[in-house]
């Protein structure tokens, strides 16, 4: 009986640990602001990643193959961005909240500052593997984050997109 209780306790602890590992500190922000006006939210799941090969099979180019390679290891991508539209107070409040998120399991890789824009790269590691990459973005007229979880290969991501000309997040639409 005692043995069974101990096994059950160990299982509960393992499950709790696993849950804590998969939760991101940005979850609360995403849940809080996900459905509010003015916010751009994107949440792409593992199930959708598994369809990429099917969807991109007609598309040509090495970048698609690279993209497929990268996403196969991912669990999800979450993006939450707020643009300064009418209520600049809302942006200030959100910015403060974003910068106040406690990232105790994360370590900072680097911060890229350019023309008033700041992009902070944070990673959370599980052993030698990176299991979450978090970009905290502060631009003069928008703020937000990109959270990528799963098995992340920074080298492949770095190679991804020299051909893609992306400067901002303006093309992101809502799909949640």
């Amino acid at each position, binding site marked *: 009986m005692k043995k069974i209780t101990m096994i059950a306790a160990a299982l509960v602890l393992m499950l709790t640990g696993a849950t804590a590992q998969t939760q991101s500190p940005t979850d609360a922000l995403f849940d809080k602001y996900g459905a509010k006006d003015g916010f751009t939210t994107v949440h792409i799941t593992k199930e959708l990643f598994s*369809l990429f090969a099917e969807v*991109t099979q007609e598309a040509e180019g090495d970048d698609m193959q690279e993209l497929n390679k990268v996403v196969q290891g991912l669990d999800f991508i979450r993006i939450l961005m707020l643009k300064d539209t009418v209520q600049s107070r809302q942006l200030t409040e959100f910015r403060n909240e974003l910068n106040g998120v406690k990232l105790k399991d994360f370590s900072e890789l680097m911060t890229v500052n350019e023309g008033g824009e700041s*992009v902070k790269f944070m990673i959370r590691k599980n052993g030698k593997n990176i299991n979450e990459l978090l*970009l905290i973005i502060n631009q003069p007229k928008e703020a937000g984050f990109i959270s990528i979880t799963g098995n992340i290969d920074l080298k492949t*991501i770095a190679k*991804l*997109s*020299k051909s893609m000309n992306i400067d901002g997040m303006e093309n992101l639409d809502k799909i949640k």
Partner: protein
Amino acid sequence: MHTTEVKILLEKYYEGATTLPEERQLEAYLLSPGADPQFAAEARLFGHLAKAKQETLPTAAAKEIEQRLQHTAPNPFYRSRQLWYYVGGIAAALLIFFTVAISFYRQPANTHFVAGTSYTRAEAEAAVLQTQQALAFVSAKWTQGTEPLKKLGTLQNTQDKMQNLGALDRNVKTINHSMTKASESLDELERLSKIKIVIN
């Protein structure tokens, strides 16, 4: 019976709180010749009730009613209620089935479900685009951030190359030095040979 007691019992009777012995006691008193005249109305009421109790239905009439009740044909609906339940259940199931089937076939022509999932092709394509853009943004910023480090790496390579050139230069100098030595030796030989010639 004392009138006060009768009044109390009557009050209880009208409230429906009397017991059967109390009712019998009250009835006996009110219907007795010695009842107080102030209870004449109650006495009449109890008299009627007592009379009504004694009235019975004639036996023939009672039998006829009983026979009629027994021979009344049961309502066909209630007789086949069970059947109606089955029919209703089957009808409801068919209705649900056809509703689902019709709604399935009425999907817009341009909506194609991606095999084995609940996503439409349009949604999946939008997700590809979003992912592409997000990762491209990450990649661009990553490259921007690591570019200076690469330049440092290039500088290091250049420095290494310069050091290699320096080593080459030293080697060339050594070779030059050796060549000079060799040349000197040759001159010496030539000088010696000249001397020898002179001797001969």
